[in-house]
């Protein structure tokens, strides 16, 4: 067992992926920033000075306090407070957590749907392919936001605001995941079409393997690199979609703010001088999306099969 783990680590250390990562300063920097953000989001309950979900801790008298370094700042709130008197640092930490959860959750859902339909369409071809891809085309012809707004509005109207607040996070994951699966399905289908002509697939058929086995065990691992690249970019997209929905008031409720709903809640006060309520979460959002996209770019360069043969 020991030898297996050692050789696995050695394999990672000797791999082209690790080699190119070590040499790419942008990738390293992005990775460190992303890791820091993910970790602080995961450990938000430990790191945050206060719990923004706990209404008992909020004092309206503390509302709209500026960040430290400006006149009128309170040392207890290093990044200031929002209009309700919540500590900005804590809300941003918790908000990043919500945004990341929605981003990853939506992409996992997208990937599950996209991989499944893409594999079926690409491998089985014919009628299955035609039907699945037409569904994907139809779906792509609606914009994600439009679908999400309609579904979100219907949900909100039928469940009521309170109930909606509780299920909002799952609903956002569901909406964004379902709305974006064709992106992944198309990519998977394209690589499956290329892979299934290769001889190892013939060899697998000749070995008497079942179709399912050939699809999931033999072809799927060979199409993973484009899925990784697209998946990374899609996380950023999902976070942005969520922010946009929240900004329109159809996303996370004020009581459990994501980065998007924080930006929105501060937007009303930006004219009155409280710029930090909008700007700080906005900055975090931009940095988060930027580092994910930079990592996605790096992954695409490394995993491009035309540049690098595995």
């Amino acid at each position, binding site marked *: 067992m020991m030898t297996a783990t050692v050789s696995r680590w050695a394999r990672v250390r000797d791999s082209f992926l690790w080699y190119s990562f070590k040499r790419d300063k942008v990738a390293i920097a992005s990775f460190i920033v992303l890791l820091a953000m993910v970790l602080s989001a995961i450990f938000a309950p430990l790191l945050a000075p206060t719990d923004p979900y706990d209404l008992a801790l909020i004092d309206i008298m503390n509302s709209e306090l500026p960040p430290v370094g400006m006149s009128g700042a309170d040392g207890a709130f290093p990044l200031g407070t929002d209009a309700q008197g919540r500590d900005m640092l804590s809300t941003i930490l918790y908000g990043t957590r919500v945004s990341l959860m929605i981003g990853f959750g939506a992409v996992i859902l997208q990937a599950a749907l996209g991989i499944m339909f893409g594999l079926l369409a690409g491998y089985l071809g014919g009628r299955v392919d035609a039907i699945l891809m037409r569904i994907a085309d139809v779906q792509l012809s609606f914009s994600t936001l439009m679908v999400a707004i309609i579904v979100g509005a219907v949900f909100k109207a039928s469940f009521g605001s309170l109930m909606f607040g509780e299920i909002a996070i799952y609903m956002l994951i569901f909406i964004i995941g379902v709305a974006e699966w064709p992106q992944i399905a198309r990519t998977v289908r394209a690589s499956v079409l290329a892979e299934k002509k290769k*001889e190892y697939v013939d060899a697998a058929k000749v*070995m008497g393997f*079942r179709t399912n086995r050939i699809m999931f*065990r033999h072809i799927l691992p060979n199409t993973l690199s484009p899925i990784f690249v697209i998946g990374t970019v899609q996380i950023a997209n999902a976070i942005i979609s969520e922010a946009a929905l929240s900004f329109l008031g159809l996303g996370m409720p004020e009581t459990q703010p994501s980065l998007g709903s924080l930006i929105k809640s501060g937007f009303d006060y930006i004219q009155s001088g409280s710029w930090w309520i909008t700007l700080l979460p906005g900055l975090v959002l931009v940095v988060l999306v930027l580092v994910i996209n930079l990592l996605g770019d790096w992954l695409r360069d490394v995993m491009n099969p035309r540049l690098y043969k595995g």
Partner: protein
Amino acid sequence: MALLEVKNLDVRFAVRGGDLTALRGISFSLDKGERLGLVGESGAGKSVAAFSILNLIAQPGYIAGGQILFEGKDLAAMSERELRKIRGNRIAMIFQDPMMTLNPVLTIGTQMVEAIKAHRRISTKDARAIAVDKLRKVQIPSPEKRLDQYPHELSGGMRQRVIIAIALLLDPEIIIADEPTTALDVTIQAEIMALLLDLCEQENVALMLITHDLGVVSQVSQRMLVMYSGRIIEQGPTREIINDAQHPYTQGLINALPQMGEPGARLFQIPGAMPSLKNVPSGCPFNPRCSFATDECRRTMPEYVRAGNVDVACYEVERLIAQEQQAREVTP
């Protein structure tokens, strides 16, 4: 009863504007432990023949008629479930390019264990033991270590050995080898061929060797088939065909071997090229390139005639045999 008997097999490809016939009336048999060579130019239908034996011709191809009897059961009429039990298990296949046949993202061990487990209910540990044993049989050094390696960590010759080991995993009755050495270095070719032969002999496995290398066929196989444009035009004992080819096409092939010419002289070649499936000439498909072609050849497809132990489809051979008989009758 022969182990494998193919009777009048027709394979067609459904394409726009009608069907193309890829194989026409293919009949041959393969006995237990026998070595059969299948030769022909590219596009003659050798690989299609190999795949159709396993009933695995890809769309739009289909078996239009005939039987493929394996131990008396017709593979052409079998369900997919029954076919899966035979593929890999009873009839194995080796492909041309060892770089492409192994899955690049799975270790050798995973691929071998998976192949065993697809057909037998045994533990991973036992399956690994079988895999190691077979790798040792194909003379791969330190086989336990190879199991954890990926295909790209092995050389071409090594990979082809692994592929042979995979073909042998379930002790099949028949191995179909589709140009197993074409993609290898010349020095490795002979080694791999010798290994394959040895193993087939040891385990009493029937080998169907598909190749365009007459040299290999003459050394390896006991009987051979010559294919041209989807038809078998000559079949019989290898030695007889190589020494005294009957069909003008086979004669041409043999004369085209570099060994046949004078040193320094230009190599012989058969004029023209094999017709594509779209415009196969009427009558004997070889007639446009044949120096003996008559109107009869252009009109109708010749039937098989027997010359010694060889079956040939050629009117010229038919005429020669008739002449010989006449001569024998005139001078008693």
